[in-house]
């Protein structure tokens, strides 16, 4: 009996160092990247490809949201923090210590349930819908159907971007909130009269997009800023990146990722943008 207890204790003690071995035992290098779920698929795919091309280098990618990404990088807990929004736009972040790498552009489009046969909305109409001044599709040229707003959760990058360019500071109407774009898509697809917004890459046949002020939500229109609802995807590092972090960010900016992988995953390469837009929304042409 006593021997058995001793044996179990020894086994348990033996397990302890094993947990540490996993990270240090492979003689490789690894970095951890957390943050924005919108950017996660790209970084994951790129990290996997990077790992297979560079033996012994590991890129760990986790989600958690833009807020998590920014606060973790501020504390220096991770190598790179991903965010959909500028660090300046989040309260509680000291952006002076962070270095911004804008790796991609994401276009965001309003989406509606297919029963709502509305093809075009003006910015004023969109704003009226999301602030709650208009509550029936009849008022904006649609069928007699109550409008059901589906929002992303507060502070989500997609929502912040959409509200920045559509509401322009007006308070949004309290409405349903969903944590993920996948849920939003399912709810908009099945709920009559529903309206929401999502990144271009998530749009599929179950829902319909809307032209805003006569402009169609296409990649081409984003690159010229005719379609104004878009945002940069940021990878933030604390100070200038070094070592593996620097190599990996350079890898993300390489042609292989920017020209081949990004379009396939629904992002727009920064190199295609004919204009650039700063934090305050000032647009300047790219030379």
């Amino acid at each position, binding site marked *: 009996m*006593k021997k058995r207890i001793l044996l179990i204790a020894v086994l348990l003690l033996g397990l302890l160092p094993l947990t540490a071995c996993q990270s240090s035992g492979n003689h490789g290098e690894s970095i951890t990247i957390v943050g924005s779920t919108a950017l996660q698929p790209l970084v994951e795919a790129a990290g996997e490809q990077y790992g297979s091309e560079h033996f012994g280098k590991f890129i760990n990618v986790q989600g958690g949201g833009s807020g998590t990404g920014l606060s973790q990088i501020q504390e220096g807990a991770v190598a790179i923090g991903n965010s959909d929004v500028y660090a300046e736009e989040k309260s509680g*972040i000291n952006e002076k210590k962070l270095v911004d790498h804008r790796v991609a552009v994401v276009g965001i489009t309003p989406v509606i349930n297919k029963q709502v046969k509305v093809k075009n909305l003006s910015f004023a109409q969109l704003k009226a819908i999301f602030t709650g001044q208009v509550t029936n599709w009849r008022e904006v040229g649609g069928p007699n159907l109550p409008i059901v707003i589906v929002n992303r959760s507060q*502070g989500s990058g997609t929502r912040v971007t959409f509200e920045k360019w559509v509401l322009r500071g007006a308070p949004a109407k309290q*409405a349903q909130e969903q944590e993920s774009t996948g849920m939003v898509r399912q709810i908009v697809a*099945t709920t009559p009269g529903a309206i929401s917004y999502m990144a271009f890459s998530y749009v599929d046949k179950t829902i319909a997009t809307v032209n805003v002020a006569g402009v169609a939500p296409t990649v081409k229109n984003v690159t010229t800023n005719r379609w104004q609802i878009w945002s940069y995807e940021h990878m933030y590092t604390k100070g200038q990146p070094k070592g593996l972090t620097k190599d990996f960010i350079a890898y993300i900016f390489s042609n292989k990722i920017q020209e081949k992988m990004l379009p396939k995953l629904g992002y727009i390469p920064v190199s295609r943008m004919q204009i650039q837009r700063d934090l305050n929304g000032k647009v300047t042409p790219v030379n």
Partner: protein
Amino acid sequence: MDPIRESLLKKSHQAKLERRGRLLGLFCISLIVVVVAAIFYFVASRGLATFYHDKINLWDFLTKQAWNPGTKDSHGIPEVGALPMIVGSFLVTIFAALVATPFAIGAAIFMTEISPRRGMQILKPVTELLVGIPSVVYGFIGLTVVVPVIRYLFGGTGFGILAGTFVLFVMILPTVTSMSVDALRAVPRHYREASLALGATRWQTIYKVVLRSSLPGLLTAIVFGMARAFGEALAVQMVIGNAALLPHNLVSPASTLTSILTMGIGNTIMGSLENNALWSLALILLLMSLVFNLLIRLIGRKGALKP
């Protein structure tokens, strides 16, 4: 020294073993106590920062209806009114308990009084199976079956208190049932025999004797179920709609403390007001689970069967 004297004066092998066992037990207990205390300290320090550091009025926090921690109202005070979430949490919890209780006690009576053999063979495995199903599965079924049905029957979007109630009802049913069974089993056999001997029918025995004497146990079972419903996050979040609004009716989107908490925490920065406000919600949750625990203890002590 002779061996007898030695064995009497020295600690025996058994005594040493016992002491070692007691130390091990003490160590485990104190570890748990430390962990619980640490959790309380952490949640409280973060949750109270909303009131001390960000100077939010506690009363406003509990009674205001606007939840928009990122924006400020006309007086320059951040909009952190948690009333819609508090009301939402209590409504789904109470409704779920109200719906689940008759079913659970009915099933428990069937399993202990009416048909113990069949009850044990069929009902018990079924309730045990229900306990083991992960909450995301309940949530998914709620989203794909319950929400469309409610939308079809009552209109609206289908998301709301009613959908949350249905999902929680199924989730807490097995907990309440199995605890009710234990409570009914604890009723001494001679109570039933005496009642039957006095000429009472089986129904009268169940109704007047068994249920009456197991009341504290049944109440404990219901409160346990409520505690579980109050803390459930994932499944409720999927079907309730997550709108920080006071519900007008049972099929308008609402929210619970847990659903707003899990949705927002990844999008906020540690130490900012938005983050602290969410920790305050967590503090409310923690205090409520404490209340539920105390309630169970109180019921157990006050209502204990006195022979």
